[in-house]
């Protein structure tokens, strides 16, 4: 059973990598980074799971911490994205004003 999930984790990471490389929109890149982190969390739990039994509590706690850190970083990145947009918009306006002169 874990074999299927291990293969999934590897492919999931590659899908995230694809999004990170192929997309130019920042919000899509953020989604891609989140998918990649999910793949890492998944594998971390898998290698800590005995063939029959529940996962070890230490990696579970680490992944729980990781999920909270991921949402913190996503929130900060989204604030950064809005700031970047506002900056770009302001610069575009200034360029237009310069062009009129």
């Amino acid at each position, binding site marked *: *059973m874990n074999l*299927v*999930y*291990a*293969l*999934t*984790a*590897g*492919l*999931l990471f*590659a*899908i*995230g*990598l*694809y*999004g990170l490389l*192929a*997309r*130019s*929109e920042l*919000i899509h890149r*953020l*989604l*891609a980074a989140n*998918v990649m982190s999910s793949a890492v*969390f*998944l*594998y971390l*739990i*898998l*290698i800590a*799971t005995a063939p029959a039994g529940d*996962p*070890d*509590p230490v*990696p*579970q*706690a*680490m992944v*729980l*911490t990781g*999920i*909270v*850190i*991921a*949402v*913190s*970083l*996503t*929130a900060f990145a*989204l*604030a950064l*994205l*809005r*700031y970047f*947009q*506002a900056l*770009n*918009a*302001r610069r575009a306006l200034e360029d237009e004003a310069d062009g009129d002169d």
Partner: protein
Amino acid sequence: MSAVIGAAYDLLLCAGLLWVALQAMRIREAFGAVVVFMVFGLLMAVVWARLGSPDLALAEAIIGAGVTGALLLNACQAVQTDPGARRASARVEPSPGLPHGLIVAVCIAAGASLAALMALALEVPGPTADAARAGADAHPLGNPVTVVLLDFRAYDTLMEMVVLLAAFLGARVLIDQSELAPLHPPVPADPPMVAPLLAMATPVLVLTSLYLFWAGSHAPGGAFQAGALLGGLGVLYRLTGRLEPYDHTPIWLRTVLVVGLIVFSGVVLAAALWSPWPMRYPETGLYPLVLAIEFALLLSIAATLTALFSGTAGFRPHTGARS
């Protein structure tokens, strides 16, 4: 028979997970990609449950799909409403000089080799021994994950709270700097159905949150899931105008934002009174101390997530008439 059904279920789940992740990468429009990503979070929650980790399933469903989804949808709306944002959309130049075919080829190669390596490395014994589990079994708290979070590796949890607070402070500085109008300005009147929704959702969410907090010491649940759920209620209140954006962080909000860190570090320091080591619980009284820390963490997490969603320096209860 049931083993076959289980294997088929795993295959279907993994195929769905990969398909949804790929769609989230491929859909052009940001809104669609975000919605598909939220479905991805929910499927991840099912995966955690399937792998025998209900704590992670709860956290992923509430935080990974719920709160992250709300934050991402917020960003989609910002593109619509921020002045000039639609034209100056947040994009960077595509990776320089890389044709799409090459990227696909690299990713297929990386995926194939990673999947093969990961599958092979499953045979290697994991990095952790059974010591933690054995210690957790003898611990007065019944939930091994909570034992690790609040006792064995409490420093990690303390630092995690610091990261959460730092994310809010950083976002606050950026929003201040960009001088943008707040998203979701107060609405003059509720659309129909919103008031009954809140009347029903409020007690249910508060009760579930308190239950998760209480259960966390002996069963799946804990401060993070409970706090995020309460934060979800805060998001709902902020969206419906019960909490309105405010360009200061009021004193009460500052207090709630840091109360988790203060109580937690207070216990760390106070440990000097009864032990030569910091962050060691006294022989008796572990349970009330853990509950106190967890409750303070719950409040701080809920307030921080609501403030991050709000996208303003702070929020305050809406006063004044509402029809």
